[in-house]
C-alpha cells in the first residue's frame, strides 16, 4: 500500500457499502492527491461504479468517511457535492439526448451564476473540442459515441470543477477516440483539475495515471504509483479472479 498523501483532495476511508444484504465495499480506502490522475481498476462487479456513486452522493455508504478538500461529503446531496467542485463524466456519457449540444454543455454550468464567464467558457470548450462547433444546435442523441464523449467532457468542465470523476471514459469508443480521450484527460489535468477515473482497461489507464488502485470484489488488493503497477503481473491476476474467486 502507498502512503496516503498528507493533504489529499479526495479521500475515502474505510467505506463499507451494501445493496440490501449484499456487501459491495469492504473497508475501502482511496486517496486522490491534489493535481493527480488516479485510476481505479477492476473487472466486472468489483464495485468500481459504486465507488463513483459514493463520491457523488448517489449511493450512501453504511459506514466510513468521504472527504473532499478536508470537509466531509457524507450526508450531502448530489447537487451539494457538485457545488463543492466535483464534476462527473458518467458511465455511457448520459447526455440529455433530446437537448441540443449547446444546451448539454451549458447544463454543465448549471451551478454557476456568472453568465458572461459561462459564455466565455463555452467558447473555450469549442477551441478545446473544435468538432463540436458545427454540432451545437444538433440533438445530442444524434452524435456518434466519440462525439458524445467530447460533449460529456466539455459539460463536466463547464462547472469549473476542482476534480472530475469519470466512469469508464473510453468504453465503447473507437481506437482513434480512445487516444483522443486520453490526451484530453491529460490536458485537463495539466490545467490543475484532479481526475479520478474508473476503468476496466488497465493498460490504457496506467499510461496516464499517477496512482492506481486495483479493486476486486469490493476490496483494494493492490495500489501504488501507476509506473510501478504497469509491469506488475498481479494486476493481470486480479482481473482473472485471483485468490478470492478460486
Amino acid at each position: 500500500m502507498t502512503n496516503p498523501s498528507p493533504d489529499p483532495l479526495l479521500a475515502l476511508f474505510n467505506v463499507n457499502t451494501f445493496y440490501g444484504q449484499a456487501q459491495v465495499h469492504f473497508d475501502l480506502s482511496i486517496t486522490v492527491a491534489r493535481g493527480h490522475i488516479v485510476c481505479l481498476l477492476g473487472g466486472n462487479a468489483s464495485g468500481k461504479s459504486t465507488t463513483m456513486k459514493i463520491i457523488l452522493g448517489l449511493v450512501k455508504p453504511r459506514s466510513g468517511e468521504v472527504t473532499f478538500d478536508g470537509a466531509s461529503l457524507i450526508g450531502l446531496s448530489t447537487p451539494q457535492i457538485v457545488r463543492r467542485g466535483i464534476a462527473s463524466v458518467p458511465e455511457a456519457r448520459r447526455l440529455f439526448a433530446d437537448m441540443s449540444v449547446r444546451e448539454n454543455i451549458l447544463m454543465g454550468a448549471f451551478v454557476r451564476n456568472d453568465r458572461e464567464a459561462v459564455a466565455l467558457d463555452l467558447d473555450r470548450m469549442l477551441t478545446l473540442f473544435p468538432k463540436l462547433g458545427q454540432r451545437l444546435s444538433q440533438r445530442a442523441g444524434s452524435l456518434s459515441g466519440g462525439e458524445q464523449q467530447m460533449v460529456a467532457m466539455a459539460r463536466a468542465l463547464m462547472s469549473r470543477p476542482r476534480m472530475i470523476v469519470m466512469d469508464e471514459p473510453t468504453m465503447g469508443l473507437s481506437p482513434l477516440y480512445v487516444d483522443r480521450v486520453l490526451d484530453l484527460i491529460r490536458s485537463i489535468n495539466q490545467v490543475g483539475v484532479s481526475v479520478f477515473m474508473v476503468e476496466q482497461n488497465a493498460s490504457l489507464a496506467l499510461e496516464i495515471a499517477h496512482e492506481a488502485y486495483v479493486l476486486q470484489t469490493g476490496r483494494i488488493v493492490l495500489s501504488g504509483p501507476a509506473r510501478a503497477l504497469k509491469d506488475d503481473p498481479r494486476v493481470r491476476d486480479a482481473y482473472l479472479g485471483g485468490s478470492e474467486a478460486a
Partner: protein
Amino acid sequence: MSSWLDYTINGLIVGNVYALVAVGLALIFGVSRLINFAQGSIYLVGAYIGWVAVVRLHTPLPLTIIVVAAATAVVGLIIERFGLRPLQNSVRIAPLLATIGISFVLDQLVMLTFSPNPRALPSQLPDVRFQLGGGTIGPLDLLIAGVGLTSALLLFVFLRYTKLGWAVRATAQDRDAAMQMGVDVNRVNQAVFGIAAALGGVSGMLVGMYYNQIDTAMSLQATLKGVVAEVVGGAGNVPGAVIGSLLLGLVESYGVAVFGTSYRNLFAFLLLVVVLVLRPNGLFASARQAPPEPLTGTFIAPSRPVRIPRWALLVAAAAFAVLPFFPVSSYVLQTLINAWLLGMLALSLTLVAGTIGQVSLGHAALLAIGAYTSALLSLTLAVPVGLAVIGGGLMSAALGTLLISPSFRLRGHYVSIATLAIGEIVSLVILNWESVTRGPIGISGIPPLSLFGHDLISPLSVYWFSFAVMLVLALVQGRLLGSHLGRSFRAIRDDDIAARAYGLSLNRYKSLAFIFGGFAAGVSGGIAAHLYSYINHETFNTQQSILALTVVILGGLGNVVGAIVGSVALVGLPELFRIAAEYRILIYGIVLLLLVRFRPQGLLGTI
C-alpha cells in the same frame, strides 16, 4: 349546435380544456414517471375556488384566473412536499397509491365544504355568439382558446429559456445525470407540481363556466380524460399531450354528433384502450423517450408475511360462524355481510394485484358484470338464484378476462390505466345497451337469494350464506397460492422477464389469475344484486374499486387472510365508531395515505 363546424369547434375547445390537464400530467410523468391521479381533484378544487371568487368575492375575470392559478399551485406544492416527497425512496407503487389517496381526500373535503349539490358558476362574459362560417363561436370559447394558447406559450418560454425550465427538461431525460450537473430534483418536482396544479385548476374553473355548473363528480372524469389524452399523446411528452387532448376532444365531439351524448366517454376510453394495445408508448413517443417501466417486482414492496397459526384461523372462522347464535343485533350481521361481500372482491383483487402484480383500478366492473348477469338470468330466464349467482361468477370470469387480455402485455402503471378504462367502458356499455341492461333505469325487482328453492331472506341466513361462499373462495385461493401455480404467479410478479425466460407463458398465467379473480368478484356482485334487489350502472363504481384496493393494501398484497381482515376492518371500524357516511370515503383516503407512508406491506405483509 348542428353543423359539423360547430362540432369541430366544440371538440377543439373541449380538447383545449383537456390539454390544460394533460400537459400537467405529462410534465409530472416526465420528471417523476408518475401518473398523478390527483390531477382531477386539483381541477375540482380550481372550479370551487373559482366559484368562491366569482360568486362570493365578485372578482373580475382576470383576477379570478390569477386567484385560481395561485391557490391551486399552492395545493400542488403541498401535495408534492407532504404527499409524495417522503415516498421518494419507496417502491414505485407507493406514489401512485398516494395520489389516489390524495385525490379521495381532496374530493371529499370539497364535498364536505360545499355539499355534493351542483352549483352554477357564471362566466361573467357577455352571452353573444359570433357567426363563423357555418358555425358559431362565443366569447367563452375564445377565452378558453386564449388561455390554452397563452399557457402553451408561457410553458414553452419557461422550458426553453429559463434555468429551472432547463432543469425540468434535463431531469425528464435523465434524472441521475441532471443531479450530477447540480440540479436539485426536489425543486424541479416542486416546480412541475406547481405548474401542473395551476393549469389544472384554471382548467376546472373554465369548464365550470363553460357548462355553468360545477359538482364533485368532475374530479374523476377530469383525471380520466387527462390520463387518456396524455397516454394517447405519449406519456411524458408535453406537445404530445396537447395533440392527444385535441384529438380526444374531436373524437368525443364527433362521437356525440353521430351517436348521442351518453356515448361521449365511451369513445374516450375506447380510444385509450386502442392506443394502449396498439401503441403503448402513445402516438408521438419515440422509442427512446419513454423508458421501459421497471420490472413489476420493483413495483410492489417485498416483505415477510406475518405467520398466523392454523388453529388461530380455525378459531376465528368458527367464532364468526357461530356468531349469529349469540344475541347480536341484525345491524352487526348486516355490517358483516357487507364485509364478506367486500372480502370476496378483495380476494379477487389481492390475487390479481398482489399475487401476479397487475394493479387493477377497475375491479368494480367485475362486480357489475356478475350482478347484471345474475339478475338478468334470474329475472328474464327464471334461472334459480343459486345457479344464477354462479352464472354471474362465470360470466365475470370469462368476460373480465376477455376484456383485459389485450392489455396483458402492459406493465406497471399502464395496467392500472387500462383496467381503469375497461372498468369505465363496462359501466358505459351497461348505461347504453338498453335492450339488455335497461340502461339508466337499472334493474329492479331482482328476486332475493335462494338455495334449493328456499328463499334466504333473514339476515341470519344471508350472513351464513355469504360467509360460507367467501370461506370456500378463500380456502381455494389459499391452496392455489401454496401450489406450483401460486409460485408461478409470484414469479411473474417479481420478474416477468426471468419468468418468461424459464418458460412461463405470461398470458396463460395472467388469464388464469383473472379467471379465478373474475369468478370471485362476479359471485360477490351476483349476491349483492339479489340482496339489493335493485342495481343500475352506478351501483358498482370506481369508489368501490379503490375501496377494494385499500382493503388489499391494508391486509397485505397477495395475502388471503389479509384481504378478509382488511375488509372487516374497513367496513366494521367506521360502523363501530359510528362515523357518518359522508366522512367514510375521506377516512379510506387517509388510511390509504398512511399505509403507503408507514406500512406499505400492509398489516399482515405481502405474500
